[in-house]
C-alpha cells in the first residue's frame, strides 16, 4: 500500500466514532440512519465520517432505493496491520530472547552463558516470510 494511502487509513482510524462505525459495519451493511443511531451526532456529521472512511478505502457505498448503504472493506485494514507488524515483531521477538538470555546469565556461571543454548545452534525452523 502506498504511504499516502496508509496515512489516509491511519488518519481515518484515529477517530473513535469512525472506528465504532467500522466495527458496526463488520456486522453487515447499514444505512446512514442506522449508523447514526448509537451516536449523539447529526446526520451530516455521520456523512462526513463516512466520506473520510470512503476516501481511505475502508468502506464503499451503494444505493438501496432512497437510502445509501455503507459496506466495510477489510483489505486496507489488513494491509495497514501487516505494515505495522514487521518492526514490532522484530523487536518483540528480540526482547523475548533478551529476557531469556538475561535469565540464563543470572542463573549460570558467566562463562557458560556466553555459549548459545543447544537449540540456538540447530537449524532454524522456517516461519513465515522474509522480513
Amino acid at each position: 500500500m502506498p504511504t499516502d494511502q496508509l496515512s489516509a487509513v491511519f488518519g481515518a482510524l484515529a477517530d473513535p466514532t469512525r472506528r465504532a462505525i467500522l466495527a458496526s459495519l463488520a456486522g453487515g451493511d447499514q444505512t446512514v440512519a442506522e449508523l447514526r443511531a448509537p451516536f449523539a451526532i447529526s446526520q451530516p456529521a455521520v456523512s462526513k465520517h463516512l466520506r473520510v472512511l470512503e476516501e481511505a478505502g475502508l468502506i464503499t457505498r451503494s444505493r438501496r432505493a432512497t437510502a445509501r448503504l455503507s459496506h466495510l472493506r477489510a483489505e486496507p485494514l489488513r494491509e495497514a496491520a501487516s505494515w505495522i507488524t514487521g518492526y514490532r515483531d522484530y523487536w518483540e521477538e528480540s526482547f523475548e530472547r533478551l529476557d531469556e538470555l538475561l535469565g540464563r546469565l543470572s542463573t549460570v556461571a558467566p562463562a557458560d552463558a556466553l555459549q548459545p543454548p543447544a537449540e540456538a545452534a540447530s537449524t532454524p525452523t522456517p516461519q513465515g516470510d522474509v522480513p
Partner: protein
Amino acid sequence: MTTATIRITAEPGTTLIETERVVNGPRDLVFRAFTEPGLLAQWLGPRRLTMRVDAYDVRHGGAWRYVHVDTDGTEYGFRGVFHGDPAPDRIVQTFEFEGAPGHVALDTLLLEDLGGGRTLVRTISAYQATEARDAMLENGMAGGMEEGYQQLDELLARLGA
C-alpha cells in the same frame, strides 16, 4: 514474570522512531547483552534468522557490522559506527541497512535501572527525513507502530480480521 510489551512510537511528521521495553535483568547485564557480540548474537532478531557479528568495536569511533542470515541463505547486513564511549547511560551509534546505503539513522540507547533487577530499555532512532523513516518502516527489519495504532489492533480484533 514480565508482562512487558514493547511500546513503539512513530509520530507523524517527525523523523523519529522511539521504543520502550522493560526487561528482566539488572542494568549492567543488559548493557553486556547489548555490547558483547557473543551475547548480542543470542537475542537480536527473529529466531528463524541466524545472526553473525562481523565487527563490534564498542568504543568512540568503533565500527560495527552484523548480518542476519535467513534459512534460504539470504543475508541482511547492517553497519554503523559508535559515537562517544558507550555506557549504560547512553550508547549512540549510526545504523545503516546495507540494502539502502546512505540512508543512515542515528540511534540512541538508554538503559534505566528500575530496581528489583529490572531495566527500562529506551531507543530513539532519528532518520534523515520522514520519508526515510517511513521507507524504513515499510521495508526489511523495519516497520513501526504509532502509539495510537494499538487502536487498530483492537479494531482488527473486533472485526476478526
